[in-house]
């Protein structure tokens, strides 16, 4: 039976800024063929997939720019005070909705808070939600998917059906239902929800990748030589099957940041006084006619952050997938 439910590598399309994948259909095959036209001659020295990819990435401006942007974002999410001396919660209602002025380049929001400071501090929530959710999803997903792909059989069938079930539930809808009654105003329920609904996506990728790798000759050879299952899995399969997971997880990280903002916009993610781009965009949307700057700055920051992660994942995928050179 074919499984064309989704083109390989497509992640539950939600049409909602929920999970998404750039590589719709761009199946990641990691076979290495000598580049160039028929016989550009033998290569001087054998190059591994990873060192080859790294050599490519170092020369790829897209990779360099997005990596630098991400580095910057991570730094200011750890230490926002590096680039702002303000306090995001110190607001002056008298200045509400005022535009740009000296010392306050982005102007003030509806509560009279400094938009620049709030935008800088908002990085922290977005980055931590993105990173933690991705870690959780990647660990849980590759563990379940990898084991199912390796052992096959009943567990594999059961896991496939379970992932089918999760794919049938629209992500934002699930988020609304689950988070609408949560009273805790921390990032943990949001992250928990993302891990709960996100793991099947990685699990499917990991499963496919492990199955492909398992069939390679060198794995068969190791098996024939009597390698134990755990040794096969850890030494031979995992290092070679992990590439697609990394690519998809990097792109997913961007989408989780977008999803957090979407949920906050819908009023079920994080709530004030937490400083988050989603909350700020949501409250700004009420003043969209009078003071569009309140919306544009956090929205711009959000878009740049998501873009950086997606482009990073895209660049890594291109480097790991020699097929399209």
């Amino acid at each position: 039976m074919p499984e064309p439910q989704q083109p390989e590598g497509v992640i539950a399309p939600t049409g909602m800024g929920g999970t998404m994948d750039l590589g719709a259909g761009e199946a990641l095959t990691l076979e290495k063929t000598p580049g160039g036209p028929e016989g550009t001659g033998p290569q001087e020295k054998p190059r591994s997939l990873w060192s080859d990819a790294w050599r490519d990435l170092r020369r790829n401006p897209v990779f360099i720019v997005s990596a630098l942007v991400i580095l910057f974002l991570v730094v200011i999410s750890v230490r926002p005070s590096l680039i702002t001396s303000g306090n995001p919660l110190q607001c002056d209602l008298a200045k509400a909705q005022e535009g740009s002025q000296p010392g306050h380049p982005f102007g003030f929001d509806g509560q009279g808070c400094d938009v620049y400071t709030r935008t800088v501090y908002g990085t922290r929530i977005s980055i931590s939600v993105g990173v933690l959710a991705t870690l959780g999803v990647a660990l849980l997903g590759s563990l379940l998917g990898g084991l199912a792909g390796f052992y096959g059989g009943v567990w594999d069938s059961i896991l496939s059906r379970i992932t089918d079930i999760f794919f049938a539930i629209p992500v934002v809808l699930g988020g609304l239902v689950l988070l609408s009654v949560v009273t805790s105003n921390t990032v943990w329920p949001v992250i928990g929800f993302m891990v709960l609904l996100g793991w099947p996506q990685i699990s499917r990728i990991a499963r496919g990748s492990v199955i492909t790798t398992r069939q390679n000759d060198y794995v068969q050879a190791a098996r024939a030589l009597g390698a134990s299952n755990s040794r096969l899995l850890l030494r031979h399969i995992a290092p070679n099957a992990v590439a697609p997971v990394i690519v998809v997880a990097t792109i997913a990280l961007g989408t989780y940041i977008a999803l957090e903002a979407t949920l906050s916009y819908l009023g079920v993610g994080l709530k004030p006084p937490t400083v988050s781009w989603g909350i700020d965009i949501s409250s700004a949307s009420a003043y969209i006619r009078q003071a569009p700057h309140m919306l544009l700055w956090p929205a711009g920051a959000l878009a740049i952050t998501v873009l950086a992660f997606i482009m990073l994942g895209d660049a890594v995928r291109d480097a790991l997938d020699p097929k399209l050179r």
Partner: protein
Amino acid sequence: MLLEVRDLHVEFRTRDGVAKAVNGVAYGVDEGETLAVLGESGSGKSVTAQAVMGILDTPPARITGGEILFQGRDLLTLKEDERRKVRGAGMAMIFQDALSALNPVLSVGDQLGEMFVVHRGMSRKDARAKAVELMDRVRIPAAADRVRDYPHQFSGGMRQRIMIAMALALEPALIIADEPTTALDVTVQAQVMDLLAELRRELHMGLILITHDLGVVADVADRIAVMYAGRIVESAPVHDIYKAPAHPYTRGLLDSIPRLDQKGHELYAIKGLPPNLMRIPPGCAFHPRCPMARDVCRTDVPPQAEVEGSGGARRSACFFWRECLDGRHDG
């Protein structure tokens, strides 16, 4: 001459540099003649053929010089639309792997009939009848029933027959077959090769047979051109070459064929690897692997010398073709 390639140069521009795939190839085919082009992968034999057909991917490929005269016209100066009309009708190509060379989602009847629809303006119905006729001609059993089938429903040998039928459809003057039997089972190879040779005779077509299999060549070819690093190193009537090669590379190729009458002897292998086309050695490109190489081979490019006594039919690009012909090895 039906086809004459003169001093053809083709380059590939890749991210890692420029690969010189074809460096001044010249060969010709007469009507009704079979020319075998021999060489390792990377020797430029397929690239030359694709340049003749006009199906090189440009970029990355680029034809940087030369002429391709077909029935007196230089194909390289034709307008794209004129050139297109030559393809399929004037010359046709048979590819190595019929499974990937045939469109997987169109029936073989559609793909065969398409030739008549496009070049002859036939109706679909007439074209389909022609397709059945062609399939009969290449001896596909129950052609009328199978004309609606898709490529994956045929066996490898049958698929290659369909490939041949497609090439023969408009009875072109020239067929280029690029390793037509390499992808097939040994038992089927001979059948397909015989069929090709027979149809070529019937239709009196010129044939360029690209191969690395010397065994096939001896049976069907009239002339042989041996290619190395984008150049022709030796060209000669087929029997002359088998008798006594005039280039050390040809000798190496012949010596590396396993022979039943020399059982027990160690099989000869040309030492070293084919050259990197981005860094072709100066002088004679073969010198790093040549057992006869001397100082002059490392600095000067050997000219295409006419082998004496062949009446112009035989050429070798080796300074020391006489020694080679005599079988005197230095190494």
